[in-house]
């Protein structure tokens, strides 16, 4: 058979242990006098070592071995109460990516919100224009406070509660006092004073300020300095002003509701499958999601969303066949934001959604994580960030299966 092979061919037969003695003699004779052939021998040897190297390092992953042993009846199936042995491990593995992403997102958001936020202290001259000086600052004395409580008909612990409520209104009212004498324009929670006397008593003279400061720290009472600091913080926060959010440190008051609804429309942009391990299927601006949120307070919003996302799944279920399905999903959404989380003029947000989806007769579970920044532009909000969506479904052959998709997002929001 030697006549059918060139000396170069014989190199491969020899290295595979398939060359007979005559072929070996022919090959070695050619090798001795041909540098190119020597080079090819060296390269063929490198290839053989690479094959051996890969052969020795190949090992089925644990999740796959788990599946095989479940099929063999050695491990329990990943459903039912008795599935904790193999099933829990399998589930944990599949949940690792979305949970890991969530944790990573939380850490990034924390740093963005707390460490990278630029100082919002206004220049002294600007501050002087916006914040009344100590001498002209409206203050309240303890006697006036008591008089007010008595006139409002509150005593004891109820009085304390009432004082706290009124103090909150006054904090916010600092800004309104400058443009209007009408205290009743303050937001909900304000109790109208019973008489003009008491109304005037709220704007007390500066000479009472020392007395007022002495009471600072008393439960339910907020001093002039604290209110000035609070007002400065409010004035210094353009985002809070634009959204008309009450920006008062929570250490001073307990309530900060804004009653804002917002609508967000986001498009999924460039795929970032390389960033999130396990995520697949690049698609450019092919996915869309809409969210309606009710802002419970400065930091929390709750609502629902609808998304249409294509997933890279090719599998059979008990009810049908999934071939790169586009999944329409309804989700319950929770969004975590922070009024003082400013980064490059934007507001960091982290939203989580969970909901069902149907495709080809198959019910699927969908988990959604969004992390990004929202920038106020006029009456709109520009949303950027990234989205990770996980889908869980019951595969005919693999049992509980998952697919993860990650994308950059770009979208618009509207607040009213």
């Amino acid at each position: 058979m030697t006549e059918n092979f060139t000396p170069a061919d014989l190199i491969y037969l020899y290295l595979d242990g398939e060359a007979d003695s005559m072929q070996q003699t022919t090959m070695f004779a050619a090798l001795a006098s041909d540098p190119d052939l020597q080079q090819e021998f060296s390269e063929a040897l490198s290839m053989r070592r690479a094959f051996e190297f890969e052969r020795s390092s190949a090992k089925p992953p644990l999740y796959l071995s788990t599946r095989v042993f479940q099929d063999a009846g050695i491990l329990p199936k990943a459903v039912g109460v008795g599935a904790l042995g193999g099933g829990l491990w399998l589930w944990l593995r599949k949940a690792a990516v979305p949970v890991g992403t969530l944790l990573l997102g939380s850490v990034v958001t924390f740093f963005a919100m707390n460490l990278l936020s630029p100082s919002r202290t206004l220049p002294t001259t600007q501050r002087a224009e916006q914040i009344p000086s100590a001498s002209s600052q409206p203050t309240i004395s303890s006697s006036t406070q008591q008089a007010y409580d008595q006139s409002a008909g509150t005593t004891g612990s109820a009085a304390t509660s009432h004082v706290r409520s009124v103090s909150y209104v006054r904090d916010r009212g600092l800004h309104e006092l400058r443009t209007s004498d009408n205290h009743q324009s303050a937001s909900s929670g304000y109790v109208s004073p019973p008489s003009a006397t008491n109304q005037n008593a709220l704007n007390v003279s500066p000479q009472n300020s020392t007395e007022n400061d002495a009471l600072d720290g008393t439960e339910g009472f907020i001093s002039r300095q604290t209110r000035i600091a609070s007002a400065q913080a409010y004035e210094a926060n353009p985002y809070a002003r634009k959204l008309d959010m009450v920006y008062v440190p929570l250490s001073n008051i307990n309530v900060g509701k804004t009653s804002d609804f917002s609508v967000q429309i986001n498009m999924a942009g460039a795929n970032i499958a390389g960033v999130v391990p396990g995520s697949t299927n690049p698609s450019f601006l092919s996915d869309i999601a809409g969210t309606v949120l009710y802002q419970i307070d400065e930091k929390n919003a709750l609502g629902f969303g609808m998304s249409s996302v294509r997933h890279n799944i090719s599998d059979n279920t008990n009810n049908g066949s999934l071939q790169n399905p586009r999944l329409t999903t309804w989700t319950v959404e929770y969004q975590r934001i922070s009024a003082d989380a400013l980064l490059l003029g934007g507001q960091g947000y982290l939203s989580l959604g969970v909901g069902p989806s149907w495709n080809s007769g198959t019910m699927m579970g969908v988990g959604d994580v969004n992390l990004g920044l929202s920038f106020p532009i006029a009456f709109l909000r520009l949303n950027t960030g990234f989205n990770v969506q996980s889908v869980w479904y019951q595969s005919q052959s693999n049992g509980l299966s998952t697919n993860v998709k990650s994308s950059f997002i770009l979208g618009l929001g509207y607040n009213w």
Partner: protein
Amino acid sequence: MAADYSTYTEAELYALLFGSKSEKDAGFQEIYDRTSSRIFMYCRKILGSSHAADDAFQETYALFLKSASPDKEMTNLPAFLIRIARNVCLRMRQRTQQHGEVMFSEHFFAAPAETSSMEQAELAKLLTMALDMLPDDQREALILQAYEDMSYQEIADMMNVPMTTVRNWIVRAKRKLREALEQYWLDYRK
């Protein structure tokens, strides 16, 4: 004292599959330990797609257990399992082609072991990618020889072709791979 199944012959292990539940489990685990790496490698190299290869791998062992019979004489377990895996992979490939789909090209790359050189790991990756350029017959013959360590005769028996054909396929395939990696060799020499 627990039996040391690692000393059992393949025929003895196969016979355990028809014993008690504990014997069957122990026998299957030992068979799996001895063969899973090769079957796994075969499925990944033939199908490329990690999802499809995982399915084929799982189905291979399910079919192996289903087809087990006390009347069967088992002398070469790896070859028997690769034959099952081959049938499963061929069926999956046909099904994919019938649907007009292109297999998702997601190659499996083995993680480099600590003792292995970076060059070997890099070359192994390049070879895996270059495999796609080969005709199906040449590719399969090469995978069985290079990754499964089967002899030309065993491959000929499995693929049901003359050994001379297998020899030609493998030699041609390896020379093509080498040519495809020409740039790598040039860089390597530098």
